[in-house]
């Protein structure tokens, strides 16, 4: 039983990180209907930027938690600007182009990020310091939960609540939802769709930056090519939840994290990926719109 509880705790932690990253995919897909393959590498970039900023600022603060929050905020600003530039340079000129062209452009942008990380930080893995969060552990029964896991769970939870309120209760949120349903109609209603798309990219990059730093803090080791793996998992999470659907991405992320860690705990970790994709394919066969997605009628 304790294995089960332990795997559930680990699964919830990694699942909430997946959820944060998956939101970036799902919001972009919701409005622009294309898969932003560069998002995973942007997450990796934010893990590196965050680490560098943390190591520069840590000496000037007595408390490492404050140093983490400061570096998180600076990272968010930097990554949001990069996310905006990405949209402006690589995607905006391709709005009217065939959809696969934008996909290839995203793949190219991902390649640029990945190699930029390798050129700046070198090909060897970097490590987040072990004492970045006080190494406290709580036991209940035979299972343990660490302070870092609690922090990740709490922060992700509040960020997702915040996002939910932003999207569902504010004017900007209403504009985002309108642009997701029909861009042309939204434009006719006086919504500045370009500005909405910029907001979406900034939001997605923000969540991705938080996810990237959480990944570094939780796993400690970060490599230049890690973005692709986490990115594709998060994207799978977005699809499982129903792509384009914001609560769906959160749910899908948690679900995928739990599924992954239970498979790794009970069946086999060498087959974990295969099980994930078998699950994905089964979901797509039997419920192609994901858990929460709505059926979209094919336009003629």
């Amino acid at each position: 039983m304790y294995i089960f509880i332990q795997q559930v705790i680990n699964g919830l932690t990694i699942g909430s990180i997946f959820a944060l990253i998956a939101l970036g995919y799902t919001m972009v897909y919701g409005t622009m209907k294309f898969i932003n393959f560069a998002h995973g590498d942007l997450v990796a970039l934010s893990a590196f930027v965050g680490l560098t900023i943390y190591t520069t600022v840590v000496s000037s603060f007595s408390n490492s938690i404050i140093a983490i929050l400061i570096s998180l905020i600076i990272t968010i600003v930097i990554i949001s600007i990069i996310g905006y530039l990405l949209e402006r340079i690589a995607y905006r000129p391709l709005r009217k182009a065939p959809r696969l062209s934008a996909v290839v452009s995203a793949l190219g942008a991902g390649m640029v990020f990945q190699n930029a990380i390798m050129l700046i930080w070198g090909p060897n893995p970097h490590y987040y310091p072990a004492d970045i969060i006080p190494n406290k552990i709580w036991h209940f029964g035979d299972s343990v939960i660490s302070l870092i896991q609690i922090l990740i769970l709490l922060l992700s939870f509040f960020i997702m609540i915040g996002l939910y309120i932003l999207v569902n209760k504010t004017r900007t949120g209403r504009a985002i939802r309108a642009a997701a349903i029909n861009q042309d109609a939204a434009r006719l209603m006086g919504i500045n769709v370009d500005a909405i798309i910029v907001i979406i990219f900034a939001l997605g990059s923000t969540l991705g930056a938080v996810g990237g730093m959480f990944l570094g803090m939780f796993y400690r080791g970060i490599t230049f090519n890690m973005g692709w793996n986490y990115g594709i998992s998060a994207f799978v999470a977005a699809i499982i939840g129903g792509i384009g659907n914001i609560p769906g991405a959160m749910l899908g992320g948690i679900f995928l994290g739990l599924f992954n860690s239970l498979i790794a705990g009970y069946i086999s970790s060498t087959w974990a990926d295969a099980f994930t994709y078998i699950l994905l394919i089964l979901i797509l066969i039997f419920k192609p719109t994901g858990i929460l997605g709505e059926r979209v009628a094919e336009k003629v």
Partner: protein
Amino acid sequence: MRKSAIYKYLVFLGILLIYPLFSNSSWLAIGTTFIIYSIVALSQDIVLGKAGMFDMGHAMFFGIGAYISAIMNTVFNIPILWAIPVVVLISAIISVLMAMPTIHLRGDYLLVVTIGFNIIFQQVIKNNVFGLTGGPNGIFGIERPSLFGFEFSSDLSVYYLAFFVLILILIMIKNLETSAVGRAFHYLRLDNLAAQCVGINTRFYRLFAFALGASIASIAGVLFAIQYTVISPESFNLMQSILFFTIVIVGGMSSIPGVLLGTFLMFVLPEIFRDFNTYRYLVFGVMMILTMILRPRGIIPKKFGIIPKYLLKDK
């Protein structure tokens, strides 16, 4: 085919024919791999460019070809050329079984499903299923083939073997374009619903496109196993699938010269700039973005007859 087009193909094939005269052994290997990758890219183009199905897992069929022929050769001692019919049959069956439940999915979903199949395939061969696939190290000691007493033992002979197969595939695809099947693919891509309404069995033709693309890619896989005599899972991973996918989009969907040029740009060009090791893929990514912005339909887009501009619909 117009006369000028025939001349262009002849020039291209002529260059490939005399290329070994001017190359050392490492460049000859690159040349052979270029031909093999061109065949895979052309087969990817049948699925993606001609039939319009977003397939981002094509390296899987390439890998199935290489692995099945290598297993038949090293475990059962069957001459590798005899493996080709078996390989074609098996990969066609696998592709149809794979596509049957998923083929109805919309574009992006299909793309993710094919990515998923490729990753599952990776794990299967990496985990050394049935003790046949050799795990992460792959399979060693694949024999070079012999035909009518002629041994394809030298790299040069393998180059010309691949060249010969490329010519066959090119002729086949040219015929496909002007056949009923090719026209069905074309309608299917432009508008699935309209194709169904004029009486095309879209489901059949979609499966057909998948099976055809898979079989051709698996033949290229056999050639790949022959060329390197060693195969490992990395040659067939998702990155390779993305490479083939990108080749087709960058070159120009369903345009044969485009796909060939795309293979050159995406595979041979990085080899030429090997000296700039660390910077080349950075520049490469920038070039991918720029190409798409400047030529969103690919470098050499396919022209379908004379269609007035206002009728062209971007999708």
